[in-house]
């Protein structure tokens, strides 16, 4: 084990810090609507022009091919600068669909989509969850009927972030009639402008509308849009989620440490006060989360389920940090503002991407080896 930065690491950190300090937008982007897409793609284009986009993507596909430790350094400086949240409308393309295509896509799929994702020309959304398939994703029912070289898709997806803005969707559907659970699924590229698609935005509890329901009524998708093999979609989807739990999660986890420091600076707690003790707990846990984040990407081995430990630690700590920030506002907390938006948004942390309860089941069953839950 060695965490001593090399002189090159120091230079890289300084270069990242200088560029971000000079180029990151100073104002928070709108959370939804055309302004959100415009701000997100403009920021991505700016990063791309300076060679700071697709950091984890291989160089062959226009990325920077950075090693894991350089990614950690970049995202630390990114958070310290207060650069825009990576969870904007470019997120699914850069951190989900793009890496999935790089790993499992055809040459034609890669050649068409990857440059567009990297330059912010196409926005992607996710189409995994359904009204009846949330934590139990494998029970999904949206179907794709094979007709010659076409899939005819019918059904409904939900919680699809930025679906209104999106040009494409990573869509997980049941393509093998009569199949059950993890079998017979396919991961397909869905053109969001295709006839038969209806998007209905859903406002969340923060009053924002960045996610939506998507309805499919005889939507025709070419079979050549399947990624990772027909009826093999579960494996492709697990690949997708694996990316989510690495590079994308890294950025958010490191950002939380900086948020705790901002909160400490703003709170001005008297030494020894109850508030100072609470802040010290948050600070210690944020340090622990940072160490867990570094270890999750800089240590070989472990189980594929170890990500649940970091993910859940982050989710619950993030909620506590945002809750305290809201409490410290006092009566002002009744008014609209960025702190309250973040606080309300943070309720999704223990729900999205696997609820806290499901994560605890995974830790107990897959890591600790406790008996599996009885399933009907």
């Amino acid at each position: 084990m060695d965490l001593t930065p090399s002189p090159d690491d120091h230079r890289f950190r300084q270069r990242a810090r200088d560029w971000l300090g000079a180029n990151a937008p100073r104002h928070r982007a709108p959370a939804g609507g055309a302004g959100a897409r415009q701000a997100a793609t403009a920021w991505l284009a700016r990063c791309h022009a300076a060679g700071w986009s697709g950091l984890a993507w291989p160089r062959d596909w226009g990325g920077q091919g950075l090693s894991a430790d350089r990614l950690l350094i970049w995202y630390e400086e990114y958070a310290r600068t207060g650069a825009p949240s990576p969870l904007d409308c470019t997120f699914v393309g850069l951190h989900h669909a793009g890496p999935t295509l790089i790993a499992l896509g055809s040459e034609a799929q890669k050649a068409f989509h990857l440059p567009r994702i990297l330059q912010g020309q196409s926005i992607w959304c996710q189409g995994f969850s359904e009204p009846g398939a949330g934590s139990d994703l494998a029970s999904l029912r949206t179907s794709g009927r094979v007709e010659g070289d076409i899939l005819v898709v019918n059904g409904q997806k939900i919680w699809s972030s930025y679906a209104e803005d999106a040009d494409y969707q990573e869509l997980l559907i049941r393509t093998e009639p009569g199949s059950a659970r993890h079998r017979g699924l396919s991961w397909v590229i869905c053109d969001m402008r295709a006839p038969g698609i209806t998007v209905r935005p859903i406002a969340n509890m923060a009053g924002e509308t960045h996610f939506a329901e998507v309805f499919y009524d005889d939507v025709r998708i070419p079979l050549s849009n399947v990624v990772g093999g027909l009826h093999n979609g579960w494996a492709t989807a697990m690949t997708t989620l694996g990316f989510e739990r690495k590079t994308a999660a890294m950025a958010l986890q490191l950002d939380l440490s900086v948020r705790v420091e901002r909160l400490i600076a703003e709170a001005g707690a008297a030494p020894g006060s109850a508030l100072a003790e609470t802040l010290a707990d948050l600070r210690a846990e944020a340090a622990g989360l940072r160490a867990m984040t570094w270890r999750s990407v800089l240590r070989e081995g472990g189980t594929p389920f170890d990500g649940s430990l970091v993910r859940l630690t982050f989710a619950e700590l993030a909620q506590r940090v945002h809750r305290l920030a809201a409490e410290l506002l006092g009566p002002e907390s009744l008014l609209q503002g960025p702190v309250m938006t973040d606080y309300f948004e943070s309720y999704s942390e223990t729900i999205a991407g696997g609820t806290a309860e499901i994560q605890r089941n995974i830790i107990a069953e897959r890591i600790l080896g406790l008996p599996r839950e009885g399933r009907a």
Partner: protein
Amino acid sequence: MNLDLSDEQSQILDAAEALLQAEYPLSRLRSGAAEDLTRLVEFGLFGLGLAGEDGSDLLTEALLHARLGRHLLTPSTLAAAVAARLAAQAGDDALASRIADGALPVSAGVATGGDLLLCDAPGATMAVWREGDTLRWGPCDSGAAAPPAGGGLPLTRTPRPAGAATAPSAPWQLLVAAQLLGTAEAALDLSVAYARTREQFGRPIGAFQAIKHHCADMALGVAMVSAQLDFAALALEAGQEDADFQIAALARLAPRIALRNARMAIQIHGGIGFSDEADAHLILKQAHRLGQLLLPADLMALDAPLTPLNRSS
């Protein structure tokens, strides 16, 4: 940069684990006999800090102490490791060797009023102890056995020596926290093993989500303290700017997680967990003892490594 164990570190840790399992089963704590550290002396545990600049590897030493903590070794192991290091740093190689060789037992303790409470059976003539927020070390009187709370692990009370030397706290904090991590792991292991075998309502209690989620919470705590231990040890070893911060964060996390896991282990064991017959209460008492040895760490007085950057221009 990487966070993989080297082959050498893995071999040392595996060898230590094999030794601990063979020679220091938890059942030994019920015999009432004083802890015999001969096997650990032979292993070279207390000479690790003496190997010189190149060979002294705080991370390996910390990971070894986590293993000791898992087997609830006496805190004298901490005192000996740190005292040998201090003696060597003071240029007293003869003293360092006598400690490392086990010829001079050293006890760990905490000052209370005019006395020291030492975590061991009577006999030690040298100690390392916490006095408020200061670490001290030096000769002490052998003292007399004192009744431990709940009939727990042995304690000795002896008059507090006057004018004892102070010692730098960072290596002490690191190793005490490492042993606390070990107790947190011991609580998790014991709980998982029990939850897999104990049956109620026709199935192992580990099949119930309430038990599963307690165990998952224990694993979350272990994962955090373990990662922070690596970070703190590496920062201290390399003399990095953030070493004090990393140690202070570790010292805040480790006792909280150790105590929480021990409490949960008792709860998961149900009735037998409340009894003297299960080992869960031994883990709790060890966590309390180690917690008293840690110096209070003022984490808020230190600069964090990830501060927001001021973009004034």
